[in-house]
């Protein structure tokens, strides 16, 4: 318990926070201040009161319960196992061997972009998602959303039945009614029929819609989703005169400037993969790329940037102009005069790397910034080298999605829409406030409860969400793991979506619903629809199909087509990036497991490989395409563009208020569609580490000025009413002040919790989309506030606003201060960041003394396999994909917000974020994935009274669940804080859907048991058994841990340390390699490769590398002190 005295001195403490650094690296503002309370906190394994019951259990009851459980504990050893049944197949499918998983290629789409996946199937149940190593948008990696989509499929809250006005109905009834209504509408060519979809790139769907629009020539098809490419397309139109989509080659770039673009949290993990090709440091390649970031809200890209500038959103266009002027873009002038030296120095650096630099603009930046980025790339000679352009992937690229939505809303308002078919999406929730498709929009007058303005509304969706509520018909949608379909990857590659499981509920796919509007052949299965499309279309035409699909536009066909012809749509001159060419460096190449894929005759159709052009070969080609998951060589042809400088005269609108507000998609739940996904809700946001909520970010200075989160109340010292949170010396970030927030003249409608975020520019507040759902499901409903309420169609992402304190505050579950490592003598015991140039001159700067001889235990020689891991902190971008992959692979439960507040989250793996420098202008944060270090001299093992954690002969620190009695001594003694305890029964043992989802290779843990990372011991065992059966050693790269195989940055490498040629053994020789907390002499098997900063010396924010003494004088003194 912190002393009264320190509380009284809070004002002093706060000044200390804002003025002076206490530590070299800090995870939270509390730690930065080096507050005594923080020291106190670190000493506790779990925060104050974290171990209490959540309900008021009296002592008497406690003793009763204890007595009963003691009695039962004695009995548990002699329980007869319940009788089980074995249910074999009636006739077993040829390719299924019971107990052997199969991998099927499929694809997930988001925002119209498809990432190729391999879905692991255990006897027909998808149990894990991996990336497809051959797919251009994956190359074997995936992001958090693809990983978590598995949980979505099994979500018991998914829509399970067809609803007519809220009552159960049948597909037959729906078909009869809809067919009758379509026939009525045929009279006027479907003038009242409107389709609303999300971004569609599916060639089949586009062909279907084209057919419908031919049959119903007056019908209209609109696309809208909140996170779209409007700004990029509008920017391209500004700069080039026609819409275009940029494809970046970060692997070819040595200098990258991001104008508020977060490259690393994109659904497209290919960019992270590519970036790390040029960023990776090795003995052979000491020259790594340099990343500049100018942004508002701290993003992963900003965190990884070598030089970062935090600016207000309103300044961005003028800054972009200033950079353009500095780069010598013709016609560029700017009114922005600050940071001139920064911009000049950076511009010189970009110019020095002509043809090897990239300027990339963020999705939330106005078209002007995108246009300027295009012009800069052209001036820098990047176009054709590191940047290529293709036609946008979606149809009607000429009309922005927001304009399509606006047209639809106008038509609804003037009563000309008779039938609205919403295929996917949730426009009743996620549309800007002024264009919201809610019930009020459909009402003829105030009395109208039915919404008679649009007499028939149909919704297809995964959930009975806000939109389903206002529609007459709701059709449950098939999850992508249940349906056939197709879509295009970021470069246009056609990807095939293949079902892994029969639909759990009687759902329909978008293709099946669209087919219903055909005049003939309206009742078809998705398989037939997709296959017949490709039979007609032919795979050879896949790249060109893109160009023609753009011309299906029935709204603005005229000028679109003329542009199509004037822009020379030339065929792809450069080789499409075949995965095999770029793959060699990453560990994904050597994937053995996932590529033992496919039941669709893999042997006959090796991956890659061209299709047979012969006329009768469709069936063969189709099998090959389905097996591989994509159509080879179907990337879109490059488009030749040329920027004109005329757009630069357009004025930029300056901000008209003191407080600017920025809207961003939530890093976990995206635009809100994943709100009911427990994995994503509980995933700590990459930078704030907040779970289960959205907050509003504010800079430390502004928070002080506006007196936000500055109060300290008694209850915060004692841990709050629930006894949940640690005293918050930063003035209540965990107890966040609630404010009312106004933006664009509208109110959010719910109190918004404030969060002090280092790196946020002053006087800018960032709010997040995706929360405030009213009908998300049991998990996502009523969490957080709805930022769509203040989004306006003319100010989608940035605006001005005001906030006012409500006087109340709320508890926010952030894991930022959970599981802190106690830092001993030296700052670099935990995290190491080197300046690249300094490190190249002093490669021995990271030398560590080996304390093994100091141990009292005799050395054990590992003669067989000796498993080890390296984590490259220079590569890690903090994207969290490993955390979800680990959760999915290892059956890790979700615990809920209240339990997270008590520091009881169960993730075996966490990503620690350490800031350095000043709190208002921090360096970093630097990411450090922290998982069980598999210490050879493991402190946890020596304290276990029941030998529940012991060493294996391969050096794994085994955790034996059935021996564990839950003393938690091991966790207490773990210096890395990577052990997790099941305080309560977190696993859902009852929901049948979740039983299907779990990995059958991993024990499902119960209450009272400690658990931790096992290096995916089930994968090791699988590979070991397969290798022994073949009488061969385990090949390097044959075992990929779940975190390793998902990692888009290839930061994690696992392998055998006794095999001198293994990648991990090579990496351990890297001079950057170091042990965390080396002086504790735990001899960890997991080691880290130090982070690097590739600074530009000419930059005004260049930080002279601090020369650390290379000796280790304090280590000996401290060695005996460790381990508490």
């Amino acid at each position: 318990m912190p002393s009264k005295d320190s509380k009284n001195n809070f004002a002093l403490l706060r000044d200390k926070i804002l003025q002076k650094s206490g530590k070299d690296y800090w995870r939270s503002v509390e730690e930065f201040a080096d507050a005594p309370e923080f020291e106190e906190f670190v000493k506790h394994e779990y925060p104050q009161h974290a171990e209490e019951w959540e309900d008021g259990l009296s002592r008497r009851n406690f003793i009763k319960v204890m007595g009963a459980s003691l009695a039962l504990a004695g009995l548990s050893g002699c329980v007869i196992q319940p009788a089980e049944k074995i249910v074999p197949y009636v006739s077993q499918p040829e390719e299924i061997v019971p107990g052997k998983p199969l991998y099927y290629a499929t694809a997930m789409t988001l925002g119209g972009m498809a990432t190729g996946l391999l879905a692991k199937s255990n006897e027909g149940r998808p149990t894990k998602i991996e990336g497809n190593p051959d797919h251009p948008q994956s190359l074997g990696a995936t992001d958090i959303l693809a990983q978590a989509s598995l949980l979505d499929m099994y979500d018991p809250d998914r829509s399970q039945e067809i609803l007519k006005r809220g009552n159960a109905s049948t597909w037959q009834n729906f078909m009869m009614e809809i067919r009758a209504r379509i026939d009525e509408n045929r009279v006027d060519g479907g003038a009242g029929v409107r389709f609303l979809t999300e971004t569609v790139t599916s060639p089949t769907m586009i062909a279907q819609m084209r057919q419908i629009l031919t049959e119903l020539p007056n019908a209209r098809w609109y696309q809208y989703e909140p996170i779209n490419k409007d700004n990029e397309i509008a920017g391209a139109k500004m700069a080039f005169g026609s819409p275009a989509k940029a494809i970046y080659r970060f692997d070819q770039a040595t200098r990258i400037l991001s104008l508020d673009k977060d490259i690393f949290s994109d659904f497209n993990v290919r960019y992270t993969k590519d970036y790390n090709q040029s960023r990776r440091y090795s003995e052979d390649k000491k020259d790594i790329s340099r990343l500049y970031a100018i942004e508002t809200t701290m993003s992963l890209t900003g965190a990884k940037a070598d030089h970062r500038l935090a600016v207000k959103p309103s300044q961005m266009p003028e800054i972009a102009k200033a950079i353009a002027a500095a780069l010598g873009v013709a016609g560029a002038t700017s009114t922005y005069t600050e940071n001139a030296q920064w911009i000049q120095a950076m511009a010189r650096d970009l110019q020095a790397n002509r043809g090897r630099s990239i300027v990339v603009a963020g999705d939330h930046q106005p078209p002007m910034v995108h246009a300027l980025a295009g012009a800069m790339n052209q001036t820098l000679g990047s176009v054709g080298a590191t940047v290529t352009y293709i036609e946008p992937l979606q149809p009607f690229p000429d009309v922005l999605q927001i304009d399509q939505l606006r047209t639809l809303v106008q038509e609804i308002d003037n009563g000309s829409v008779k039938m609205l078919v919403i295929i996917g999406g949730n426009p009743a929730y996620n549309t800007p406030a002024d264009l919201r498709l809610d019930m009020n929009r459909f009402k003829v007058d105030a009395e109208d409860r039915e919404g008679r303005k649009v007499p028939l509304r149909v919704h297809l969706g995964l959930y009975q969400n806000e939109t389903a509520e206002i529609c007459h018909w709701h059709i449950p949608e098939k999850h992508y793991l249940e349906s056939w379909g197709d879509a295009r990857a970021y470069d246009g590659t056609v990807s095939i979506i293949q079902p892994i499981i029969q639909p759990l509920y009687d759902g329909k796919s978008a293709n099946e619903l669209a087919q219903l509007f055909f005049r003939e052949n309206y009742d078809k299965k998705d398989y037939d629809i997709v296959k017949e499309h490709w039979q007609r279309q032919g795979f050879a035409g896949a790249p060109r199909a893109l160009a023609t699909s753009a011309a299906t536009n029935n709204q603005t066909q005229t000028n679109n087509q003329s542009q199509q012809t004037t822009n020379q749509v030339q065929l792809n001159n450069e080789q499409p990036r075949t995965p095999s060419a770029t793959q060699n460096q990453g560990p994904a190449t050597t994937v053995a497991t996932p590529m033992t894929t496919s039941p669709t005759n893999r042997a006959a159709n090796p991956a890659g490989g061209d299709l047979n052009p012969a006329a009768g070969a469709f069936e063969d080609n189709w099998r090959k395409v389905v097996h591989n998951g994509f159509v080879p060589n179907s990337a879109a042809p490059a488009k030749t563009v040329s920027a004109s400088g005329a757009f630069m005269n357009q004025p930029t609108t300056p901000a008209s208020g003191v407080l600017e507000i920025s809207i961003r998609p939530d890093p976990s739940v995206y635009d809100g569609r994943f709100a009911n996904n427990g994995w994503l809700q509980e995933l700590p946001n990459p930078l704030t580490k907040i779970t289960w909520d959205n907050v509003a970010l504010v800079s430390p200075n502004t928070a002080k000025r506006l007196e936000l989160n500055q109060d300290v109340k008694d209850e915060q010292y004692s841990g709050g009413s629930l006894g949940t949170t640690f005293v918050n010396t930063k003035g209540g970030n965990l107890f966040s002040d609630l404010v009312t927030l106004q933006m664009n003249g509208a109110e959010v409608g719910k109190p918004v919790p404030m969060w002090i975020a280092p790196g946020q520019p002053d006087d800018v507040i960032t709010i997040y989309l995706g929360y405030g759902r009213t009908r998300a499901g049991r998990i996502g409903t009523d969490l957080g506030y709805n930022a769509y309420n203040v989004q306006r169609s003319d100010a989608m992402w940035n605006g001005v606003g005001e906030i006012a304190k409500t006087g109340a505050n709320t508890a926010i579950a952030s894991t930022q201060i959970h599981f802190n490592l106690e830092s001993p003598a030296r700052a670099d015991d935990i995290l190491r960041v080197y300046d690249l140039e300094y490190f190249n001159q002093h490669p021995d700067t990271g030398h560590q003394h080996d304390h093994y001889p100091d141990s009292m235990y005799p050395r054990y020689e590992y003669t067989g396999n000796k498993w080890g891991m390296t984590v490259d902190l220079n590569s890690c971008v903090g994207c969290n994909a490993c955390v979800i992959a680990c959760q999915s692979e290892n059956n890790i439960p979700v615990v809920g917000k209240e339990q997270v507040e008590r520091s009881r989250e169960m993730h075996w793996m966490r990503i620690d974020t350490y800031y350095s420098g000043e709190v208002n202008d921090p360096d970093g944060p630097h990411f450090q994935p922290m998982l069980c270090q598999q210490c050879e001299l493991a402190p946890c093992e020596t304290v276990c009274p029941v030998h529940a954690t012991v060493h294996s002969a391969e050096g794994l620190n085994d955790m034996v669940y059935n021996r564990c009695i839950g003393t938690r001594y091991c966790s207490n003694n773990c210096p890395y804080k990577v052990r997790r305890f099941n305080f309560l029964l977190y696993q859902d043992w009852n929901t049948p859907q979740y039983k299907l989802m779990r990995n059958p290779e991993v024990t499902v843990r119960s209450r009272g048991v400690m658990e931790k990372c096992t290096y995916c011991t089930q994968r090791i065992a699988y590979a070991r058994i397969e290798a022994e059966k073949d009488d061969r050693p385990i090949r390097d790269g044959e075992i990929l841990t779940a975190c390793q195989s998902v990692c888009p940055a290839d930061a994690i490498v696992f392998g055998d340390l006794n095999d001198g040629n293994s990648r991990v053994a090579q990496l351990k020789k890297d001079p950057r390699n170091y042990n965390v907390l080396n002086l504790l002499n735990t001899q960890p098997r997991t080691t880290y490769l130090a982070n690097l900063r590739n600074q530009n010396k000419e930059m005004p924010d260049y930080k002279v590398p601090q020369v650390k003494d290379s000796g280790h004088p304090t280590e000996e003194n401290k060695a005996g002190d460790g381990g508490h």
Partner: protein
Amino acid sequence: MAQVFHRAANNVAKISIVVAVVLAGVAGFVYTQIARSSYLTGRFVEKQQPVQFSHKHHVGDDGIDCRYCHTAVETSYSAGIPPTQTCMNCHSQIWSDSPYLEPVRASYRENKPIEWERVHDLPEYAYFNHSIHIAKGVGCSTCHGQIDNMPAVYQQNTLQMEWCLQCHREPEKYIRPKSEIYNMQWQDSELTDEERLQLKADYKIRSQEMLTSCSTCHR
């Protein structure tokens, strides 16, 4: 103050200590015996199956190889229970109207699987793998007993961890040549000790430390 305890109390105290120790020993012995009893382990208990399938007849009399039905035993952790289709391979031709086989025919006709009672049931946290044991020379009968003599299959061994560890500690005592894996009549005495050690080396069976590491079987 008078003495509270009679002089004999000294002896009572001594005797009761001895009795307590003996009783604790007996209780411990009884506990281990109960824990190993077939009541708790299910050993030797014949289970009523939906079909009166006799391994004695099919294996002993007809001489059908184990792998005809348990096809995955060499490739997967599960040996595999045959699909109804496998039964019908023969029984669509022979005994095709036997009343005993009606459940099989019904299953095939109605496409409903037969639900067998599980006989060998390991705890869920033990991850036994058939294929690696076959590959390392552990015969079927070593664990399952002489199936060819069992009209109804029962569990021959306790399947407790101490039983597993007997072999994981000294595999050489239980292994046999690969040609004899599916031989139900094989006796462990057919090999000399030298031959066993040679076999262990040939199979490259790992060290005792490796075989008794927790993560070898538990995940």
